[in-house]
């Protein structure tokens, strides 16, 4: 035991005497929380639109003033020709154009039928559809007002309640994702690199010929990252509650218990990588190229998983952070207990056992 603690002490020194590595350990979660809390949003605000108003009459003025009130749009300028429209789109200055043809009001009053054209820059399809539907709803509400004289009763009033996140903050969705991302990456990256480093520098040989059980050498390597990850988790939770005003509905103890399991999953993944590679460069590239983007994508906090092709949804099941993300959402935001997350927990447990078995099988006490 005394041997073990001194090994753990050695590993802690490794970490703390390297301030640049601490940057990634503690700088990253803070930066991510700030970015996701304040800078990044899926909403579309202040989109630059132009209005091509060939009509210049009462109805077109009405529509333009309604559009300019909405904070989804900022009316950029008024353009009078189609050529100008094209070049504005190409220079990326505008995202949406609304063309109101001449005699708009006359058509509306006398023919009872007027046309409007909405042109969207669909090189960004998501923004294009969202903006088009925003613009359409502005026009629809104007139309409703025109008709209001003819209201015939028979009105259905939908009452909509937004559960869990009534202010529709982006952070509610992102914070659990950031937690999963940070814990997974920090653990996988740092453990795999620190073990391979000893191999590369040749100090692993020294450790392996010591009377200490070689398996314990590896376990001792994982301990500091386990402790630091828990600290990290506490930091993220504190920041998201204190700074972003996120709710914390469920049990803190349960969250930390399940997170410990997730951290162990990640550590064993890091262990597996370090056992299969011999140079730091390779270990890093595997953990970064192989893990960063897939983790971001398949966790489900950036893109909805249910939209993916079935094959990818199956692959996503193999990404541990996907399960952890769902657990964190259940505990933190929905305030559910263990009965709601036992399935995910079991899956994480299974993954951990699987990864540990393989990496212990691959672990060699002899060099080359």
């Amino acid at each position: 035991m005394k041997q073990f603690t001194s090994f753990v002490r050695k590993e802690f020194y490794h970490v703390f005497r390297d301030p640049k590595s601490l940057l990634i350990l503690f700088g990253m979660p803070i930066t991510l929380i700030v970015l996701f809390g304040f800078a990044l949003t899926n909403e579309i605000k202040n989109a630059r639109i132009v209005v091509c108003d060939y009509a210049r009459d009462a109805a077109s003025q009405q529509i333009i003033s309604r559009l300019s009130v909405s904070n989804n749009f900022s009316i950029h300028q008024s353009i009078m020709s189609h050529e100008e429209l094209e070049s504005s789109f190409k220079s990326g200055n505008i995202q949406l154009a609304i063309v109101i043809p001449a005699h708009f009001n006359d058509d509306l009053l006398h023919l009872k039928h007027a046309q409007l054209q909405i042109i969207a820059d669909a090189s960004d399809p998501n923004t294009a559809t969202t903006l088009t539907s925003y613009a359409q709803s502005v026009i629809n509400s104007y139309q409703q007002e025109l008709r209001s004289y003819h209201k015939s009763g028979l009105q259905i009033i939908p009452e909509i309640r937004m559960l869990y996140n009534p202010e529709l903050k982006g952070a509610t969705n992102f914070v659990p994702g950031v937690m999963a991302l940070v814990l997974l990456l920090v653990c996988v990256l740092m453990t795999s690199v620190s073990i391979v480093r000893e191999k590369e520098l040749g100090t692993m040989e020294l450790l392996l010929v010591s009377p200490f059980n070689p398996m314990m050498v590896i376990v001792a390597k994982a301990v500091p990252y386990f402790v630091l990850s828990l600290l990290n988790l506490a930091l993220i939770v504190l920041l998201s509650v204190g700074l972003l005003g996120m709710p914390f509905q469920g049990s803190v103890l349960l969250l930390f218990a399940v997170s410990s399991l997730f951290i162990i999953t990640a550590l064993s993944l890091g262990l597996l990588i370090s056992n299969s590679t011999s140079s730091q460069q390779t270990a890093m590239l595997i953990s970064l190229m192989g893990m960063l983007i897939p983790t971001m994508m398949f966790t489900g906090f950036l893109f909805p998983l249910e939209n993916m092709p079935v094959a990818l949804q199956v692959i996503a099941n193999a990404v541990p952070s996907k399960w952890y993300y769902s657990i964190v959402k259940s505990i933190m935001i929905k305030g559910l207990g263990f009965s709601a997350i036992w399935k995910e927990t079991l899956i994480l447990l299974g993954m951990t056992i699987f990864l540990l078995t393989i990496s212990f099988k691959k672990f060699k006490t002899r060099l080359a």
Partner: protein
Amino acid sequence: MRTLYFLLRKEFKQIFRNKALLPMIFIAPLIQLLILPLAADYEVKNINISIIDNDHSAYSRKLLKDITASGYFKAVGYGNSFQAAFRQIEQDQADLILEIPAGFEKNLVNEGAQSLFIAVNAINGSKATLGASYLRRVVEDFNAGIRLSWMPAGNDQQVGNDQQAVIETVSSNWYNPFLNYRFFMVPGILVTLVTMICVYMCALNIVKEKEIGTIEQINVTPVKKHLFILGKLIPFWIIGLFVFTVGLFGIGRLVYGIVPQGNLLLLYGFLSLYLVALLGIGLLISTYAETQQQAMSVAFFFMMIFMLMSGLFTSVDSMPAWAKFLANCNPVTHFIKVMRMVLLKGSGFADIQFPMLMMVGFAIFFNTWAILNYKKTV
């Protein structure tokens, strides 16, 4: 010149003899480019709706039929209890609950108004807003249908039209008429992959020589500082160009059918500049780091921020002013923007003048800083 040639030969040999590294440089990015765009689809469809029908009338059934027929919704529950439906939301099986109160049809006809209760799982705010607005639209259409059926007898189509002025909106989607999300994602993902390879490889490569100690041997040769740096940068510049080309034509063109609309020469010109700026960043990191672990940590930290702030996943325009300023200080933002503009919209030189200028600035700034900071002495 001869010195540089030998240095380059050494670097390329080092890269090509590392059997573990090669697949990470050439194959992993391409596989990611093949798979990831399939995953990055933001369109909201297949919204799971759980329906509580306390009315069981002709109207409520018609409404349910309209909802499932709209194509956006998939009914995952149909029952009488709110508790059961709410449990579905808790377990993420349902995104929306629609509760039709008892007496829905009767009240609607007799009293002229009736409310419906909709509860949305709003953890993902943007998805919730869209889902709710789709549902509202279906309800509105249903409502209009009912009103029409209750119009006084003898009211034919023309009279109906006479009462209501209709504004018809025609929307067209330029540059990507089928709203193919992959057209948007492939250029962006390609940029991040090239960026990651160049920055990591460049940063790690020099630090590795430091860590192993071989840099001392180079420091005592008559090789000039700038030649040594050039010898380190040029191989990665070429690898960057190569990976980009394979990604653009091999995968973007052949697999995803993205036909470049703009001038390719312009794109490659911008890419060359961009790579110089990136390698400058890698070099800068390597001059500050002592070990590979440090270099990787620092590189990773900045890459993470660069990627998130680049507008790859979320729009830069929606950011607050301070974040927009930061995004403009990020080379990745500019290249992703230029890629999308040139590839999809066919923008010309005049349209990308500003990002081009910024990129020249970045390239000069990072490389000067890195070279000033690199010392041949220990």
